[in-house]
């Protein structure tokens, strides 16, 4: 099977919510090293509210992602609300009306997400933000797809690149956000947003791959 039915949206959303909840402390700790230590708290607030809103019943993937982005955009301020709000809004739109998510659809979801986030963020690759994870991950996915790889293989390529992108932030100097205060001293530590972005992309990959089995 090389596609996942969108009717199984609940599985993916539950996995995303759990991933953030499980890593709440970790994400805040990373943010605490060079930021204000609340990234896990901010993310957890939005994702947990979404979980409460979705409840127990099944949900279409596009609808589920819509619930998530609506909450991010209405309840979560700062930068995470609009950045991840745009991320999931783009994803939701790109799979709207589809029966299944296949390699092309997910590629469309990724590229839309990347573009919308870049559009609203204003940050550049190398500024030590979640873009340093998202951009290379999306590019790796497209290269694999263009090279004729399977959906599962494309996801693996994305995962690997996301991790590499996340790790690349360790040696960067923060150019935006609170950590930019530290200049040279922001080097040597992962970026919190890139870490949560990697977590989200990897959760997509493993959950989709599992459902394809």
């Amino acid at each position, binding site marked *: 099977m090389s596609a996942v039915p969108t009717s199984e949206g609940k599985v993916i959303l539950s996995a995303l919510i759990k991933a953030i909840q499980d890593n709440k402390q970790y994400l805040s700790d990373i943010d605490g090293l060079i*930021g*204000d*230590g*609340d990234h896990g*708290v901010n993310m957890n607030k939005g994702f947990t509210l979404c979980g409460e809103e979705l409840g127990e019943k099944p949900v279409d993937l596009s609808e589920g992602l819509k619930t998530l982005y609506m909450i*991010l*955009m*209405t*309840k*979560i*301020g*700062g*930068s995470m*609300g*609009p*950045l991840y*709000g*745009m991320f999931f809004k783009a994803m939701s739109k790109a799979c709207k009306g589809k029966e299944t998510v296949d390699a092309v659809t997910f590629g469309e979801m990724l590229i839309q997400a990347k573009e919308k986030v870049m559009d*609203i*963020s*204003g*940050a550049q690759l190398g500024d030590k933000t979640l873009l340093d994870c998202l951009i290379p991950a999306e590019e790796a996915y497209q290269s694999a797809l263009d090279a004729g790889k399977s959906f599962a293989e494309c996801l693996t390529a994305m995962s690997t690149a996301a991790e590499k992108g996340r790790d690349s932030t360790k040696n960067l100097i923060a150019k*935006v*956000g*609170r950590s*930019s*205060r*530290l*200049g040279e001293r922001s080097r040597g530590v992962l970026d919190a947003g890139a870490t949560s972005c990697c977590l989200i992309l990897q959760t997509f990959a493993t959950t989709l791959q599992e459902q394809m089995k």
Partner: protein
Amino acid sequence: MQKIINKPNEVVDEMVEGFVKAHAGLISKTDNPRVLKYKAAPIEGKVGIVTGGGSGHKPAFIGYIGKNMVDAVAVGEIFSSPPAQMFYDAFKAADSGKGVACLYGNYAGDNMNVKMAIEMADDDDIAVKTVVANDDVPSAPGDQLNKRRGVAGEILMWKVGGAKAAMGANLDEVIAAAQKAINNTRSMGIGLSPCAIPEVGHPNFKIEEGKMEVGIGHHGEPGLDVCALETAAQIAQRIADIILPDLPFNSGDDVAVLISGLGATPPMELYILFNDVEKILTDKGINIHIAYVGNYFTSLEMAGVTLTLMKLDDELKACMDYECDCMGLTQFGRN
């Protein structure tokens, strides 16, 4: 952390609650608990003035809601931009059909959230235009004005926009006046001690005893330099040397001066600094048309100060002299 609070994660809600109760004659709640509005808003035939931003800057932002000032405010968490929905709800609370001037400060989060809110408002036929305050000189060089942060100059922008709207101007005229106000405004801050976000529980930056941070931002953003603490006269000179040539302010100019404490610096020190600033301006032949000295735009309990100057023409003067009534700035009309 020596704070008079209850739950650290509920400080904003409780502050808003207390604020509404204390100023019941002036302020109303809206359906969105994080959007407050002037009791009389939306005012028939008047362009609505909206702003918003993170909390912890009292009187900014909600303290500038009132007569001939801001109509509605989106209230974020401490030092954190309000979600798009709140800006959007603030637009709705302020719009009487004449459109909304959203006058806010240049921060990544606020830019993103306002941008999204405007998209939301578009569907409703609410005309929203923005002016983004970027008065903080040290935050970027003069060839990158669009990277500069907004600081206490926002108050003068609201004052001008609010007065212009009250005089009956249309949306484009209000936007033009507010834009002119901020284009003619320059600010710079000095930090003497840090502040702690209640949920974090300890300051997340440090200023050592005997030092000062030159060009610090309103959330502790790094400045140009950390150097030995200077006298009031030296600080006045140092700031003047940076902001006067930036616009530039010239002999013969009329200006509004705003000296705002950052929270813990007593008004006594603000007036001492004002005394030195006045001498420098007078020496240069710059005339102070109106002066504000006090805690107008703070950063929790940070010690330090922001100096803001706005060059005035007749239109800006008329706006600055206009009567207004809000918690942060009540003045009778002057002429």
